[in-house]
């Protein structure tokens, strides 16, 4: 029961924090509940599919299919988060400055709702497939553990949801004028962490074999497998012992997003697209 609780809690937190950030980033955008719900549902469905085909997936690419698949969906999420941030930088801020009607702002947010829906779906898919495999494993053994699994899994789900909700309501405490800034930073760091994680997966899959040595080790301070480590991993991409390629990916993603946001945000550099 305890193991079911811990595993479900951990995976739900990872996906839930991302959902919380997405919800905060889309405050006041109508249709966001639908977009997020659809993302979650698609993610759950995808997670079941991935779990069902885990064997086939694992055997692809000389046994590294799982790594490449996860790296690919992480990079997809990075692309979507980047798009959201860049789009919001070019439109959201300008509108806030001009104090345009709320209706217009709504339209802008809606443009990237689909992208954020994908991000939510990808997060749920990734974490969910592990939960499905784990719970299926316990269920397959049957017996007395099945009841414990339901209780443990349920408590884990509840706990993860509470932490995610705290994150969301905490963000809502941020004054509206600053909320955009805060969420765009959160999304930037989220994307950077995902990019670093994708690089690690590509390394584990044997596709990327550069700068693999550890640059520093802070496992004495915060361990990756602690709850704090997991939270920080999801939020800002914390890793107790990052390697060179991961750090490059992390830094490059932040730089890329900031540069793109600045490029589209510079008034002089905003001609109407043909």
């Amino acid at each position, binding site marked *: 029961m305890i193991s079911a609780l811990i595993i479900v809690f951990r995976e739900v937190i990872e996906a839930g924090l991302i959902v919380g950030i997405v919800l905060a980033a889309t405050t006041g955008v109508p249709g966001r509940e639908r977009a997020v719900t659809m993302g979650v549902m698609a993610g759950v469905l995808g997670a079941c599919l991935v779990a069902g085909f885990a064997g086939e997936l694992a055997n692809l690419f000389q046994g590294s299919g799982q790594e490449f698949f996860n790296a690919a969906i992480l990079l997809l999420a990075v692309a979507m988060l980047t798009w959201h941030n860049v789009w919001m930088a070019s439109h959201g801020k300008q509108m806030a400055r001009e104090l345009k009607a709320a209706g217009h702002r709504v339209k802008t947010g809606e443009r990237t709702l689909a992208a954020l829906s994908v991000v939510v779906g990808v997060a749920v898919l990734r974490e969910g497939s*592990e939960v499905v495999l784990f719970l299926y494993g316990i269920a397959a053994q049957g017996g007395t553990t099945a009841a414990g699994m339901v209780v443990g899994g349920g408590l884990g789900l509840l706990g993860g949801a509470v932490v995610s909700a705290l994150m969301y309501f905490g963000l809502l405490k941020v004054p509206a004028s600053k909320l955009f800034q805060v969420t765009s930073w959160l999304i930037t760091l989220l994307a950077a962490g995902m990019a670093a994680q994708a690089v690690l997966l590509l*390394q584990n899959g044997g596709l990327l074999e550069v700068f693999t040595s550890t640059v520093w080790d802070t496992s004495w301070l915060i361990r990756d497998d602690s709850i704090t480590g997991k939270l920080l991993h999801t939020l800002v991409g914390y890793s107790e012992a990052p390697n060179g390629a991961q750090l490059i990916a992390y830094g490059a993603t932040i730089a890329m997003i900031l540069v793109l946001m600045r490029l589209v945000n510079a008034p002089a550099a905003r001609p109407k697209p043909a």
Partner: protein
Amino acid sequence: MKRLLLAFAFIAVPIATSAGTGLSFVAPALADASIELHLKNHKFTPSTIKVKANTPSMIILHNDDETADEFDSSSLKIEKVVPGHGKGNIRVRALAPGKYPFMGEYHAATAQGVVIAE
């Protein structure tokens, strides 16, 4: 729209380059020493794996159980799901001398092991 394309170009380029560098991966990967590891009744055999320090190695995990498990090690930085009656290739990076514990995350009570680099 142009800028969005630019954004995707920024993302696509590193992916393409990483795919490019990957072309050379087959030879070194096969040249690595590989270690057969079995998971049966949610226990690893052997539960202690010795590898040469500062040299990458490959662990081939055969899951002889009915259900999936996840080879999980935060010190090795590996999380790899291996389905029931499946096998997984686990690439272990060049390790500094030391002990690196791992576990089968779905059955952590019994599935425990350690990689020793020396």
